[in-house]
């Protein structure tokens, strides 16, 4: 097995390879404006590092967010296209789950990422393997009220005033481990479609504007 995992739902462009027993190579660059530039070279680099080619891949897993739209789509369209060309399975995993997995925490906590426009994406967990409900988007103050003094981890943790905030970077190595775990234990694997959680900003125009005074 050679699983390729990547995520572009946060400012990180992160890629990893997993052979079923462990992570073989990984690469993470944090640059919120260069997902489109850095993802493909990142994939090329991790493959080169272990002397493998795209044709050796057996499956792909992509973090499907939630995340700000533009960067998130880079990962999803890359996963879908690679899957179609190589004829291999493509799975989606909620990106927040990868952050939770990496924490290894055994008690209740929350994962928060920056949704921009003064909002956060968030979900609560019973432990690093188990999400309580579905991910949501909301105002940090309101979310903080719900979370109380529970530890809050993730790339968005330090951006807003949560009580016990621990900033972490989303890593595809964790995403790959989680995917390998779920592939063998039968956990949640989604289709590679973005969790947008917000509608596009658009309103139909009102009545025609008059030009005469």
């Amino acid at each position, binding site marked *: 097995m050679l699983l390729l995992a990547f995520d572009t739902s946060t400012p990180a462009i992160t890629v990893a390879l997993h052979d079923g027993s462990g992570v073989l190579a990984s690469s993470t660059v944090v640059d919120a404006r260069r997902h489109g530039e850095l993802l*493909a070279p990142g994939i090329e680099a991790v493959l080169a590092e272990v002397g493998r080619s795209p044709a050796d891949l057996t499956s792909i897993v992509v973090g499907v967010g939630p995340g700000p*739209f*533009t960067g998130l789509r880079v990962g999803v369209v890359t996963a879908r*296209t690679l899957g179609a060309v190589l004829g291999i399975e493509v799975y989606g995993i909620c990106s927040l789950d990868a952050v939770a997995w990496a924490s290894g925490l055994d008690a209740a906590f929350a994962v928060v990422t920056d949704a921009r426009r003064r909002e956060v994406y968030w979900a609560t967990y019973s432990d690093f393997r188990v999400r309580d409900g579905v991910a949501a988007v909301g105002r940090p103050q309101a979310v903080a009220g719900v979370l109380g003094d529970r530890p809050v981890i993730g790339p968005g943790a330090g951006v807003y005033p949560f009580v016990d905030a621990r900033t972490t970077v989303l890593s595809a190595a964790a995403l790959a481990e989680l995917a390998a775990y779920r592939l063998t234990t039968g956990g949640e694997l989604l289709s590679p479609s973005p969790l947008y959680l917000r509608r596009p900003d658009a309103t139909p125009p009102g009545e025609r504007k008059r*030009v005469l005074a």
Partner: protein
Amino acid sequence: MTAASADGPLVLGIETSCDETGVGIVRGTTLLADAVASSVAEHERFGGVVPEVASRAHLEAMVPMIERACAEAGVRLVDVDALAVTAGPGLAGALLVGDAAAKALALALGKPLYGVNHLAAHVAVDQLEHGLLPEPTLALLVSGGHSSLLLVPDVTSDVRQLGQTMDDAAGEAFDKVARVLGLGFPGGPYVDRAAREGDAASIAFPRGLTGPRDMAGEHRFDFSFSGLKSAVARWVEQRERDGETVPVPDVAAAFQEAVVDVLTRKAVLAAQEAGVDHLVLGGGVAANSRLRVLAQERCDAAGIRLRVPRPGLCTDNGAMVAALGAELVRRGRTPSALDHAADSSMPVTQVLA
């Protein structure tokens, strides 16, 4: 060299700069497939393209269009010699979807990738219809996003801008006038149809940037459609205020004539000044029936050969990107790097990212 490669490189091109998800496949100057999915219906009620709506639609349409193009062309992806993709200009989020897909293809197939300029691709597409471009060629590109007059000594490396719109693109003016007249979106085809029943000489609408001072100065090949659009709106409102019915066909015809008159007049003048005897028309507005007729008349009178691709190749599509890609391969140009950036404001003078 095999018989197949003697006919030119097999190139797959991807276009996602606005609201069409296009995947085209060409071999040299031969069109093999042109798969296009449009999200235009989703934008209709907003009266213009909503970038996020377009980007979401690109993501959903991308793999299906790649598969449809391969099926249409009867080729396998592994047989493709090179990939090409619109790297700009266009809507940033929309460009990024196509650019990332093209990079994934290039990576998985181990083939070179050309990130190309959308405007140069509008010019190069004519090679699929009329063979290799004469050099130099003059190009008039008019659509909802662009109104450009280009001098093209070499579409793979040397594109020069002679003129552009100072405000609205021509297609935008069509959209806005269609709205004023209660016609549909996008406005071009509706105005064109209404105008056929109207009298273009019945109302004298202004021709922007065509006064003697303009034509002697640095803006003589530039366009301005904003004043025209407002003049149409004022004229219609005045009628409505006076309680009179608006003669929609006449307004449409007179407006269209004003746009088309300026475009063709300046294009022919630019060709004469530059000593170029070929003019290529491109962009969505090139499908306008009156523009085609008047451009032909004026080119004939001036001894200029007019090249207009069929309407389906004038609007945004992947075949135009593939056509430019094939020409870049033929000329031995260096492919783009895998980490090239999609550039929403890519200058027209830059052919390759």
